[in-house]
Every structure is written in C-alpha cells, then in structure tokens.
C-alpha cells in the first residue's frame, strides 16, 4: 500500500462528494461557534428557512467581546451586549449547546474545545475563526472559515474545499532550557514567512515535537495560520491519548477503546511524501521576539533589528520600513531593555495552565515594574479554577499583576481591554498587526516567560537571566 499522511487519511474519510473540476464536499465532525462571526450566519440561515442540520455536532461559546473585569457586567457596550443576546437566542432556537456567560465551561473557543474533550484525533473541525488551526494538535484537520461557511456548515454540516497541499515541518533536537513552543513557532514563521504556508496544511514532526506537552503542541498549531497555512497538525500519540482520557466529551468505556484503536491508525506512514519539507533544529533556537507588524518579523531576543537598506527585495524592504515607522524603532536597534508599558499573558496561543505556570514561575516572590501594567487573562473558566487551586493568582497579585476573567481580551481588543496609542506591549498572543491590540498600539510577541521577565524589568528582558524554579 502507498504510504499515506495523517492529513490524507482524514481528508479522504471526510469527502462526501467529489465531482470533477469542483471542490470536495467535505464533512465536518465538529463545528465551534462564537459570538462575533456567527450572527449574520444565523440570520441568513433563518432568512432561507433552513435549520441547523446537526446541533449535536455544534458547540458555541462567548469569548471575544466578554469583559475580563467582573465590574464589566452587565455588559455596558450595547453592540457587545447585542452579540451576546443573539448567540443566546440563536443557540436556544436551534438546539445548539452554548457555554454561555455563566457556564463554568466557558472560555476561548480554542481553549475549551481541547479541555472539554470535544477536539479529538481524526476529526474535521471548523470555526469562524482563523485560530481554529489550534485543534490540529490532536491530529485533527482543523481550520478557520468565514461567516458564509459558518452558515454552510450550520445548514449542511459540510463545506466546499479544494484539497490543500502538504508541508512537513521537521523539528529535531531538544529545545534548550528557557526556549518554548512559542519561540519555536515564531522562529519557523520568521524562516518561512507569513505567506510561507499559503495553500498548505502543515504537519509537524520530529523528536522536538514528540517531546512537547499537549498544551505546547496547541501553541504550535495555533500559530500555524500566522505562516499562512490552512491548518497545522501533529500526529496523535500517548501524550494526546493521556490528555483526552476522562474529559467530559471524550468517548468512554467501549467507545473509548474503539476510538483509541482508530486514532492509533492515523499517524503518517514512514515513507509518505509531502509537497514540501522544512527542517528546524530545536537545539539551536533562542527565545524569540517580534519587532515589526506581522508575526514573521521576529528575531532572537538578543538580536538586532534588520536594516531595510540591506534587503534587496523591494516589497520586503518597503514592508520593513513601514513596520519600523509604525513601531518607532530603528534599524540595528536591540530590543533588550526597550521600555514596556503593558504585558499581556493570555489568549488562545498562550492562555492555558502551563503558560500561567511558566509566567508565575518567573513572577514568584518578585514585583513587576511600576511602569508596566500586567494583565494575566486565563483562557477559560477551567484554566482559571485550576490556576487558583494552585495559588497562581496569589503569585500574580503579589507581583502586582492583574488577575482577570477569561476571554480573548487584549489579543484582539474588542472587549474594552486595549492599548493606548503609542504604547508598547509584550504579548503572548498571536498577532502584532498595526492596531491589533488597540489603535496605535505596538506589540512585541513573545513567550509567557519573556512576557513575565519583561514585566519585572519594565523593559524587554530575557527570562534566562532570572533564576527560576522548575514549573
């Protein structure tokens, strides 16, 4: 038999119809819905007199516009309140389970899917959100769609999709101490560029990937979209299965045994081929930080900002020049020591328990700089409860950081959490686009370790210079 990839196995199992010269009709196993990209889809569905075909495969939550300060309730922003009202009404009318404002399972959609056991190997998963790529860490094919396709999936449980190309990213070696999954994926994006994965599904493989925890794998797959790829995937293994066992929506008993037997057949066969292969040596990586206005503009934390004058490609030169003007940074400048106004620890990229543990390990028995406001936003109610059980919230508060309610928060700045124009933020989120964290705000992307160390210093700092207990 021809060796096959994980992607190819999942793809071919989900093709309902493949007509010549047409995209495939692809079946969706899990449809995740949030308040921002779904209202128009439900409206159009109703206007056509259609119903949600499979409410049992559709789950919704509220994450983007939710205040992360308890004093933010009831929601004062009329538009945000209306989005909440609509998703509540739509889910009730259509029989869709909503993890709503008061639900102890509520959280960022890409954090709760895994932690509730909804996300499983071999599935096709979509959501009206580009960071749906996150779920591929379980060996699922997961990708973001627009509102029209949200409607298509609500109505038919299918969408039209051309088969993408495949790219393997092999990461061998061992990540040095203080270098995290976030640094690994920022290094990859800096290497292949923000359009480097366009048209492809990336499968991550190699010893360094196998050694990662489930949560670290989620960080890697989450950022895959920042390389332009459709989806990121990691073959399921014992790490995956141990994570899933016993979770609310994971199969139980005989169904678990059957699922496990199936999941073990999914990984890519030896000798399977990819359209493209990229290699990284984990051992050579450093903590990464971005200096520009897209996630590909990154460098090792002790590096110096490149000079547009040395870039021959005219469009890249223009892009870098424009980015440095927006960021008010100079070619050749080092970022270590650059003042930081805000540190944000959270998001679907780095808002899970292990991320909060890493940040707490740096902040423990220390105090953040008076010039830096520090927001710690857990990715979900469950993450928040677990962190509080471990006393992490006490560490954050004692260090002078704000311990907030779960949500997308300062990653997208739709909920009232926002930078002021001109402010610099060290952020564990995924995008440093102009204005992403608030109009005129400037973002440096980095790991939770880097964000926490920088919060202490009030300036960009290398966490490896701090003595940190194991976490």
């Amino acid at each position, binding site marked *: 038999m021809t060796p096959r990839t994980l992607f190819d196995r999942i793809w071919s*199992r989900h093709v*309902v*119809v493949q007509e010549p*010269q*047409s*995209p495939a*009709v692809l*079946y969706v*196993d899990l449809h995740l819905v949030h308040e*921002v*990209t779904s*209202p*128009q889809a439900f409206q159009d569905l109703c206007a*056509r007199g259609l119903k949600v*075909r499979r409410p*049992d495969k559709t789950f919704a939550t509220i994450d*983007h516009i939710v205040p992360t300060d308890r004093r933010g309730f009831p929601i004062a*922003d009329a*538009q*945000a309140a*209306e989005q909440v009202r*609509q998703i509540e009404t739509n889910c009730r009318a259509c029989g869709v389970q909503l993890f709503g404002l008061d639900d102890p399972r509520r959280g960022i959609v890409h954090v709760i899917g895994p932690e509730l056991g909804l996300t499983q190997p071999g599935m096709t998963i979509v959501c*009206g*959100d*580009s960071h*749906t790529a996150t779920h591929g860490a379980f060996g699922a094919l997961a990708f*973001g*769609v*627009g*509102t*029209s*396709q949200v*409607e*298509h999936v609500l*109505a*038919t449980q*299918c*969408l*039209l999709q051309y088969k993408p190309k495949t790219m393997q990213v092999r990461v061998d070696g061992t990540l040095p101490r203080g270098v995290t999954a976030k640094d690994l994926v920022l290094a990859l994006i800096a290497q292949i560029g*923000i*359009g480097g994965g*366009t*048209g492809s599904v990336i499968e991550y493989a190699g010893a360094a990937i196998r050694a990662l925890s489930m949560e670290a794998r989620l960080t890697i797959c989450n950022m895959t979209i920042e390389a*332009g790829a459709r989806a990121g995937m990691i073959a399921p293994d014992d790490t995956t299965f141990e994570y899933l066992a016993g979770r609310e929506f994971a*199969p139980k008993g005989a*169904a678990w045994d059957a699922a496990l037997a199936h999941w073990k057949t999914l990984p890519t066969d030896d000798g399977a081929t990819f359209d493209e292969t990229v290699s990284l040596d984990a051992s050579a990586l450093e903590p990464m930080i971005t200096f520009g206005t*897209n996630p590909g503009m990154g460098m090792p934390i002790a590096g110096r900002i490149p000079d547009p004058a040395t870039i021959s490609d005219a*469009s890249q030169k*223009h*892009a870098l020049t*424009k980015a440095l003007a927006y960021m008010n940074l100079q070619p050749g400048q080092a970022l270590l020591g650059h003042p930081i106004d805000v540190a944000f620890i959270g998001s679907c990229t780095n808002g899970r328990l292990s991320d909060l543990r890493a940040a707490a390990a740096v902040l423990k028995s220390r105090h953040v700089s008076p010039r830096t406001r520090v927001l710690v936003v857990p990715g979900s109610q469950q993450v928040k409860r677990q962190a509080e059980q471990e006393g992490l919230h006490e560490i954050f508060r004692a260090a002078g950081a704000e311990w907030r309610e779960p949500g997308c928060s300062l990653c997208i700045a*739709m909920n009232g959490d926002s930078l002021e*124009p001109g402010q610099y933020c060290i952020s564990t989120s995924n*995008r440093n*686009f*102009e*204005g*992403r964290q608030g*109009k*005129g705000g400037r973002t440096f992307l980095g790991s939770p370790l880097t964000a926490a160390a920088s919060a202490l210093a009030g300036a960009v700092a290398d966490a490896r210079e701090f003595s940190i207990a194991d976490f």
Partner: protein
Amino acid sequence: MNPLKTLTARVVALPNENVDTDQITPARFLKVTDKAGMDNYLFADWRYDAAGNARPDFVLNQPRAQGAQILLAGDNFGCGSSREHAVWALTAFGFRAVISTSFADIFRNNALKNGLLTIVVDKASHRDLFDLVAEIPDAQLTIDVAAQTLTLPDGRAVNFPLDPFARTCFLEGVDELGYLLARRDAISQYERNTQHGTREA
C-alpha cells in the same frame, strides 16, 4: 451572489504588502450583528485620523477612488483573521475585484462567497500595473471572467488563473450553499455509512 462576467472599471492602487484583515476592517467594528454600512469601516485606521477626519493622502479618500471597482494590492493580501467583514467592507465600498500576486486562503474563500474576484498575476505584470496607475491615475482595466483575462488600456491582456468551479460561480452567480443543499441526499448517505448519526461517532 451576483454574477460577474465582464467589468471595465477604474483601478486604485494600494502598494502595501501583507495587508491583513485587521487593517481592512479593524476588530472594534466586528461588534456589528448585520452587514449594513460596512463601507464606513474599510481601512478605517488608514482612512481616518484620530479625530475621525478623512486623511487626504490615503488613496481611498482621493477623487480617483470614487467609482473605482478594482483594487490593486501588494503581495499576500488578506492575511490574518478569518473575518468575512473584510470582504463585506470591500464590496460595500464598491470593489468587485482585487489584484495581487497572492491572497491568503481564507480571504480568497470568503471573497468568492461574496462575488469579489481575486485575481493573481505574476510579479512582472503586478509591477507593470502599479507603473500604469502611477502614470495614468484614472486608468481603467477590463476583466473578462470567461476568458480569464485582465486587459490594460494599451490592449495588452494578462491571463489569470481561476479554478473551473469559481469561474462558473462568477459567470452564473452560483450560490455555494445552494450547491451543498442540492447534495443533501449524499450527505445523509455519508452520515449513515460512517456512523455519523450519533455524537459518539
């Protein structure tokens, strides 16, 4: 969606690379629950200053943008967020086509659903088009979807790729949801065959 067969229209150039959807429609405008008035949010942070006044140096605020239906954009247009609001804002402003050397996947998918044609051209033609607009600010281009050509004022035609399905969608105004709904029987059959009939599947 509305069919698009041929279009002769003015082109405006936005020579920025990697224009992400956060620029096309900043996130604070995603709190809407309908699609009305999206043209007001298009490139809002580039179009308006802090006081909300139009910046005269931004191309969409210039007379040449009035009635323009083709946007000439830099490489990798539409990257980042999946927000379809970006496409709604472009079409509400009046654009029917965007030309670049490449588009982000989700943006291109969203564009097709809304009758916004994404035209990919090679780097040399891309440069020529920017030169053309610099030289003749009110230059018009002609798009022929059936022939998959973009014709410059001097008569030179540039071919562009378009998959057969998308081509049919544009020419006939095919609605993708209609296509999917017409295959409901096959979907039901698939669900029976693969035991997708239960949540435990």
